[in-house]
């Protein structure tokens, strides 16, 4: 199995993200991490390789900071890595990103399975995986919670998708694109050896010329970034002698809000 997993680097979930006076996004000295949803994708890709043989290539499009995410994925056990970077990619949207990622899959060649995270926690769009699948013309199975079976030689697999109503079990042909849901299971921690290997790894950089494409047009633009209005809530603490008294008062307060 030749497997590709796409990952993105994002500020840590605990980061305080703000727009500064010049309109730029900052997160102070909070660390950059492998997008948390992508950890599940890396885990699923690695388990698939471990069960069926082959290799996992981690690919990220981004400037040098993307190496934070790439190294984490390598440390978890990915075999090799590619970073895609080009001055012409300074602006992007999900569709332009998907076009670049699809071109990368074509260039890598003979890929059987492509893994994505559910969404990137910076832009929070969750569009890129399905778009890449459509551009490749490959089947897409989104939000995989579990694989029931995978027949690498026969080129088929069956997966459970996590949907609002529970699980949809889908049989698909390979090659295919999947995104991985948190239900898949906890991602592994990198081993000490893994971390050392990842730190030493040389990560090749592909430009648009290497991919043989022009910079794709960008159609969605963020025209303004804002700090959300402050939620000025003053908490009214409900007190009383007994739980019953507190509950009585609280229920009345809630009923008076007319939200029931």
């Amino acid at each position, binding site marked *: 199995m030749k497997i590709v997993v796409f990952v993105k680097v994002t500020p840590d979930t605990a980061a305080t993200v703000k727009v500064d006076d010049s309109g730029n996004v900052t997160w102070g000295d909070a660390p950059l991490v492998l997008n948390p949803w992508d950890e599940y994708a890396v885990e699923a890709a690695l388990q698939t390789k471990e069960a069926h043989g082959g290799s996992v290539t981690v690919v990220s499009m981004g400037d040098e900071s993307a190496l934070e995410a790439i190294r984490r994925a390598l440390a978890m056990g990915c075999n090799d890595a590619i970073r895609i970077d080009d001055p012409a990619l300074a602006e992007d949207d999900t569709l332009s990103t998907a076009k670049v990622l699809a071109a990368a899959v074509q260039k890598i060649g003979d890929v059987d399975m492509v893994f994505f995270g559910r969404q990137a926690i910076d832009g929070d769009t969750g569009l890129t995986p399905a778009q890449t699948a459509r551009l490749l013309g490959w089947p897409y199975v989104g939000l995989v919670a579990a694989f029931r079976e995978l027949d690498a030689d026969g080129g088929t697999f*069956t997966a459970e998708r996590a949907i609002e109503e529970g699980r949809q079990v889908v*049989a*698909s042909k390979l090659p295919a694109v999947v995104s991985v849901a948190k239900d898949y299971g906890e991602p592994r921690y990198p081993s000490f050896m893994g971390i050392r290997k990842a730190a030493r790894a040389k990560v090749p950089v592909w430009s648009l010329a290497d991919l043989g494409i022009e910079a794709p047009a960008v159609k969605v633009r*963020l025209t303004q970034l804002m700090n959300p209005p402050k939620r000025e*809530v003053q908490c009214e603490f409900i007190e009383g002698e007994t739980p019953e008294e*507190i*509950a009585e008062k609280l229920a009345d*307060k809630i009923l008076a809000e007319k939200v029931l």
Partner: protein
Amino acid sequence: MSKQIWAYIDHFKGEALTPSWEAVGAARMLAEKLGGEATAVVLGNGMDAVVQQAFAYGAEKVVLVDDPALADYRPEPYTDALVKAAGESAPAVILFPTTTRGRELAAMAGAALDAGVIADIIEMDVVDGQIVTTRPVYAGKLLAKAVAEGEPQIITLRVRAFAKPEPDASRSGEVVKVDAGLDESAVATKVVEYATTEGGVSLTEAAIIVSGGRGVSNNPDLTPPPDITDENEIEIWRGKQGFKLIGELAETLGAAVGASRAAVDAGYIPYDHQVGQTGKVVSPDLYIACGISGAIQHQAGMRNSKIIVAINTDPEAPIFKLARYGVVGDLWKIVPALNEAFKKKLGK
């Protein structure tokens, strides 16, 4: 011809999801501002009831692709059908509810039609003929204004961010049937089966949510059954008892049950219930947080709730900074008392 403003109707096996009607309402709003026609797009097999509902919720027209290959949702044939229909009537805008299928189809349609997609918006306006959307980014830590170039503009609407119109069953309109010429044998995916979870109120669509955190297991007075001896198992058992209390209050209020990640990770309740950055993003009218500290990742999922109520033993818990009402106390005492109080006051 007036502009076609489409609203995609998401359904599960022929039953429409409520956020679809929010999209129809938003399409009407846009149609008024842009001078157009609010059109519902229904894809599926045997969809007559949904078509009628779409009119009732305010669609002026329905574009319908009714085809056996659409009996089971899969993104490929659904996108093909949508692209075929869009080719025939060139919509200016296609709105989707940000459900699992809605987001996926919007993404695919964007790729197929080479159109910009703006995901998960909470507001939208028309400025000089241009649709300007607002969407949370960085888990709601920032807001962004986003615009798309060209047509169609594809936009997905955050669930509960746009009002659901009042239905009127007497309304009807024109149904435009599109033959998408789908061929099931050419579809690379097949649905094997569904494993649906027990009903209950859907978390993202819920108007009221009662949530529990790690604190729900904190009741030393509770004696576990003698066959449970393992420390870990005892904690899980305690947590489950705590969620029984939460569930009882939720039932009285007609609410959905939410949870923090700590409660999910500890095994008190399945992941489906997790609220937060790596769980579900919810925006109910009322969110009651019991034994939840209010970590930033939890806040990311529930910050936009209208009224937040917190019950926590620790007066310093960050959740109180978001809460309209707070009780510093033991949820094991407060939650059952609150349930009784509501039962009495709501006549249940």
